[in-house]
């Protein structure tokens, strides 16, 4: 039983919710930083403005530097309603002119004295923002830099940053909610064709293996194509099986009828010599029938295996040698010379051992049965990309005109049983084809009539 998988909808919705949540958090954080920066910028201007205004109010009177604190500067700072204000005005010698003596607002080292600087700091235990402005005096009595430091607590900044962030967060959340709603709707909508396919498949007659003809979005056209391809294969398979069963039935019916007739004759004939003759015929027919049944089963098996069994790496040389040994019966005529020839090293192909053995065995069997008079040989050879298994004999061979026919299943034998190849070559051809190879014939030459099975080699072989 397959594990219970969460639904596509739940998966999509979950993933997108996660993405949206992470996005919302990221955006909120970004909004916070941005809001802080914006608030700082806005209030820094006021702070620096106030400091500049105070610096502007510095005057030299009667040889002494004095400052008349401009109320407007403080009113400007008072725009941030809740913030406390600290200030210090010092003369060139560090003498306090006004404000809080303990306010430390030295500009950072290296800063230009004339440039206003803004920095964060603490004053009397509270965090403050400090602006520092210098003003140079070149009066005979007063020479050097006077300095104005204005500090303000950060309540208004924080409150502005908080408001900005809050507004942004509300927007982000609203957008996320909207996106999530849209996603839920879109996912439901997008998954609807799947439901249509499901309905179409369930509603089908079990016999109906025609392709699905549904209008589907591009993304699941592949799925429909796969289903259709699968049905195509299923249909082909079923057709094959049906034809095979029909063929097999037909093939079995003829020898069975003949056998039945022979047995009838045997039963009614009283002549001993005739009876012997009939008995021999019965024996012959039974042998044929057995072979036919074997071939049918073997064929069915081969068909099944080509569809169902994964290929493995195997040594074709060893396989051919073993097959030859098994296929040559002990009762073979001692006149026949059986030979095997092949490379010393293994030659690897990808394939199903059982099927290939069956193919080779069938070709050998055919040679023994119909060809070999004095010689039967199996030779494994290779070229750059294929492995060949030659089976040759010194028999008459098959005329080229019949080559096509004998490789077809139950290719009807016009001679009516004299040299019926049955399923042997058909099986061999099907196996070779299933492995990406081929079955071929060569007209008789000095080594005789040759049937060759070829298979693609595994090329990464070191040999």
């Amino acid at each position, binding site marked *: 039983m397959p594990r219970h998988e969460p639904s596509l909808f739940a998966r999509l919705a979950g993933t997108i919710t996660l993405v949206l949540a992470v996005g919302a958090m990221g955006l909120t954080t970004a909004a916070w930083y941005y809001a802080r920066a914006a608030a700082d910028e806005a209030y820094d201007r006021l702070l620096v403005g106030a400091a500049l205004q105070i610096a502007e109010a510095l005057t030299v009177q009667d040889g002494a530097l004095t400052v008349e604190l401009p*109320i407007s500067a*403080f009113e400007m700072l008072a725009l941030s*309603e*809740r913030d*406390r*204000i600290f200030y210090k005005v010092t003369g060139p010698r560090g003498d306090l002119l*006004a404000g809080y003596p303990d306010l430390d607002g030295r500009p950072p080292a290296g800063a230009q004295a004339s440039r206003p600087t803004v920095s964060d700091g603490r004053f009397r235990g509270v965090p403050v923002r400090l602006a520092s402005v210098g003003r140079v005096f070149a009066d005979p009595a007063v020479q050097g830099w006077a300095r104005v430091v204005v500090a303000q607590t950060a309540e208004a900044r924080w409150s502005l940053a908080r408001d900005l962030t809050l507004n942004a967060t509300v927007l982000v959340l609203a957008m996320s909610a909207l996106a999530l709603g849209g996603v839920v709707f879109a996912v439901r909508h997008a998954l609807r064709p799947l439901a249509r396919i499901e309905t179409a498949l369930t509603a089908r007659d079990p016999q109906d293996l025609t392709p699905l003809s549904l209008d589907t979005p591009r993304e699941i056209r592949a799925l429909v194509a796969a289903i259709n391809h699968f049905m195509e294969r299923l249909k082909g398979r079923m057709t094959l099986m049906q034809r095979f069963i029909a063929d097999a039935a037909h093939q079995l019916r003829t020898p069975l009828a003949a056998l039945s007739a022979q047995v009838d004759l045997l039963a009614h004939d009283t002549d001993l010599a005739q009876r012997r003759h009939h008995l021999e015929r019965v024996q012959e027919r039974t042998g044929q029938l057995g072979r036919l049944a074997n071939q049918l089963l073997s064929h069915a098996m081969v068909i099944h295996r080509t569809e169902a069994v994964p290929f493995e790496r195997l040594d074709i040389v060893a396989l051919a040698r073993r097959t030859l040994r098994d296929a040559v019966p002990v009762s073979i005529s001692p006149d026949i010379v059986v030979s095997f020839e092949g490379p010393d090293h293994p030659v690897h192909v990808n394939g199903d051992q059982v099927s290939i053995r069956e193919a080779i065995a069938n070709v050998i069997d055919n040679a023994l049965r119909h060809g070999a008079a004095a010689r039967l040989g199996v030779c494994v050879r290779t070229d750059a990309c294929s492995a060949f298994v030659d089976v040759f004999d010194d028999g008459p061979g098959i005329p080229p005109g019949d080559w096509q026919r004998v490789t077809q299943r139950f290719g009807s034998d016009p001679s009516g049983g004299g040299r019926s190849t049955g399923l042997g070559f058909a099986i061999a051809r099907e196996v070779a084809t299933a492995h990406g190879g081929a079955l071929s014939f060569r007209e008789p030459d000095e080594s005789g009539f040759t049937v060759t099975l070829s298979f693609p080699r595994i090329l990464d072989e070191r040999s």
Partner: protein
Amino acid sequence: MRGIVGRFVAALAVPVLAAVAQARETTQFPAVAAQDAVLTIHAAADLTAMEPLIRDFQAQHPRVAVTYVEYVTNDLKLAASIACEAGRPLADVILSSAVDHLVRLANDGCALEHRSQDTARTPSWAKWRDEVFGFTFEPAVIVYNYDAVPAEDVPRTRVELAELLRTKEDSYRGRVGTYDPRRSGIGYLLTITDARQTSAYGRLIESFGRARAVVHCCTSDLLDDLASGRLLIGYNLLGSYAYARVRAGAHLRIVLPRDYTVVLSRGAMVPSTAGRPDLGAAFVDYLLSPRGQRTGRERAFFFGFDGGAPPEVDGPLSVVDSGLFRPITIGPALLAVQDEARRARFLADWSRSMIDLSGEQ
């Protein structure tokens, strides 16, 4: 005279502060019922004005006794700063007519934040950081003695006043009075606010100088002179004091200036070192509550935050709605007003205009 139960000079009771805080007077208001708490009020405000409020507060809180310590504004500020820096409790609530002092104290972190329904009702110009609260509405007014000033002379704007002093210099020389900002915190606040409002101020000060205007430290001295007829016109007096005299039968009339009216609000604050901040906050709440406001308006200050003036006052029906309203906003701008260097400069300028000019003549 004042219905005071126990009153004594307390300078000797706390010798540490004696050096810096003189002329302190302590008044005890025993609890109405069995006493279980004491509220300490340190104030730079007239006890006469505050007493009805304190008694009404005690009617609400019968088990609370009140200790009322009276200072002049500068001494109160000094005592509060010292107590704040030392972390020593001084009072549960501080009242001062010099709100700039309270703002400075709050800016220095010497105040406790307090929020309530009552503080929320206070207009925003009359509070800062929920720490300093203005609880009175006191317009600066022109007061004249109607026995001595003919109706056609009554000035209703600053320009009219300056013009009057110029055209009838002989009648009014030495008979116009105003606050001495050098000697009074309120006077300084009112004068500097005045100075920032209009260009007419310079001209007015100049005409004061030419007319040898009399300066007094306090509203009550000015009112005494006005009531006795030694002065004819007083400028920049606190409306509440003036109206109290009118009610008492003095031959005085009050004019709310029609060009603009400066409005001051006395401040209340709970110090950060308060021993009973809850009682301090309760008193602040009482002052700002409708009941406290009503009591104050009926018995002590006569003007309310809605800007309504008593019927005898010559002026617009409501100062707030008339567009002539210039409140002294309780906020950090008062820090600049309060700055010592700035104060010295301003007062020097003022003296040059007023005294030198009058001295020349």
